[in-house]
């Protein structure tokens, strides 16, 4: 699903440099990325998603070399092939839960909000236990419910890859496991791989593989 080779990237402002000789993620695999703050975990997600461009190296996702695409094509690719789940949920307070789930369709012409997409959103919401709360705004939902909405938004476009950036970071200990299980369950049903950044070591046993990211800081090899 994801293949990274000889990747280098740096922020000129603070001298941060990332170097990943090789890294891969299989289809439907669940991989946890751990490492100290500032080690470049989120940067990797942004590179894979095509939000950032590497200085050198190759990033291939679902058979497409993302690093060679133009900015417009990378945006279209991201909209159709990648789902994002954020630590702070990134829901829009002025939209209902239903409209938040449809948000990717509102901001990119690469996706069409058809009947099938609407049915999919309803089924996802029911599966995530928020089927009866779709007309509520985020401010009327608990944090767990908000993250469920975010998971539905990430999956409704049927992406091949889910990128999760501390998705459980803002949740209470009880909810963390449930939300992660839900994410895995829905991703598996959709046949999507999950690449999740986390600081929570209690959750690591739920992943198939764990990648310690500290090794990828400049000068450190796998």
């Amino acid at each position, binding site marked *: 699903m994801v293949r990274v080779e000889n990747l280098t990237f740096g922020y000129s402002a603070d001298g941060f440099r990332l170097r990943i000789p090789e890294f891969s993620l299989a289809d439907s695999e669940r991989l946890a990325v751990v490492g100290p703050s500032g080690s470049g975990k989120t940067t990797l997600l942004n590179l894979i*998603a095509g*939000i950032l461009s590497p200085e050198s190296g190759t990033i291939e996702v679902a058979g497409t070399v993302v690093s060679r695409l133009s*900015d*417009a094509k990378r*945006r*279209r*690719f*991201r*909209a*159709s092939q*990648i789902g*994002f789940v*954020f630590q702070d949920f*990134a829901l*829009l*307070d*002025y*939209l209902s839960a239903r*409209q938040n789930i449809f*948000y*990717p*369709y*509102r*901001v*990119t*012409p*690469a996706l069409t909000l058809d009947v099938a997409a609407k049915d999919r959103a309803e089924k996802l919401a029911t599966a995530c236990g928020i089927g009866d709360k779709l007309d509520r*705004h985020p401010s009327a939902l608990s944090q767990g419910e908000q993250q469920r909405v975010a998971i539905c*938004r990430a999956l409704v476009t049927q992406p091949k890859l889910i990128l999760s950036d501390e998705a459980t970071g803002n949740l209470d200990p009880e909810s963390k496991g449930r939300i992660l299980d839900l994410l895995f369950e829905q991703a598996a049903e959709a046949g999507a791989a999950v690449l999740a950044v986390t600081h929570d070591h209690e959750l690591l046993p739920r992943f198939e593989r764990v990648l310690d990211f500290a090794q990828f800081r400049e000068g450190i090899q796998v």
Partner: protein
Amino acid sequence: MNALYLAFSYLRYNWARSLVLVLVAALIMFVPIATQTLLSTSERALLARGEATPLLLGSRGSQLDLTMAALYFSEERPDPVAMREVETVWDSGLGVPIPVHTAFSSGGFRIVGTTLDYFDFRNLDTASGRGLSVLGDAVIGSDVAETLGKGVGDTLVSAPENLFDLDGVYPLEMPIVGVLAPTNTPDDQAIFVDIKTAWVIQGIGHGHENVVTADEVAAGSSVLANAAVVQYQRITEDNIESFHFHGSQDDFPASAVIVVPNDTRSSTVLKGRYLDSELPTQLIEPAGVIQGLVDRIFRIKSLLDVVTAIIAIAAAAAVGLAVFLSYRLRAREIATAVKLGAQKGMVLRLLAAETFTLLLVAGSIAAIGATIVSRNAEAWVGWLLALGT
């Protein structure tokens, strides 16, 4: 459509903020339009009244006071002009003189004593009732009827000229015999009576019980039961014969005399006859006086325009700042949209759609307001002009 949908959702959810922005933007657009509409309507209304009154004869003094009293029935009191001046114009054969007497009021509205020629001259039609025909009759303007809630069959009582006017000016009760159709001019705010009725109010003419002499009492042909003579305060069929005037009508007063010359030549000749500054009277062209007043007002208006422009710029800057801050507050949303694959132009389209929606709603409100002002400008200006009388 998606950008518009999101923009509308955002504005609706943040309705209080949106409402404030819309109202401020609407005001910025509405105020200059409304001001311009009202001012241009005022200018037209003021000039129209002046241009419709070719010449005005009155005592020498302030031309503006004379014009305001004769055309707008204001509280200005130009020195009265004697009725012999009316006869002089008649005798010249150069035009038609129409005296107006505006010294008294009733219920806050000016009583205008005049002749029937005034109604033809101003094209005034009665909406109900009839015109003036008998001494004491009153015909009221449409605003008077509406404000006082009076109509044909009701009566009005004249008020004294002032609180200290205690020396014989008796209040006169006048039956309303007609109500004029609205004209959006000061005529709507006037109570019209025959000029002789105005003189009765002034005390120049009056009616009272028969007076007996001491000789008649001594001879036994009459009996004096009471020394006081009862003055009539209402003119009726029974007592109208007793009303009479003391002195020569040539000396009776009018506030001014509207003069309608036969033609341009007659106008020139008439004006020439009153050029001598030693004469106690003057003949003026009200249009010129009003134009001078309007020019003065519009010089002030240009100052007002500058102030309005400064306020509009400040308000627009405040709205712009509010919108800019709103965009800054939405940086997270924009970042999310980018991560979800939003095209570069989408964010701009979204912000443009919000601004467009705000301006569209504000523009619609301003347009509705401007339409209302435009449709009612004449009536409102008429009312505003009457406020100053």
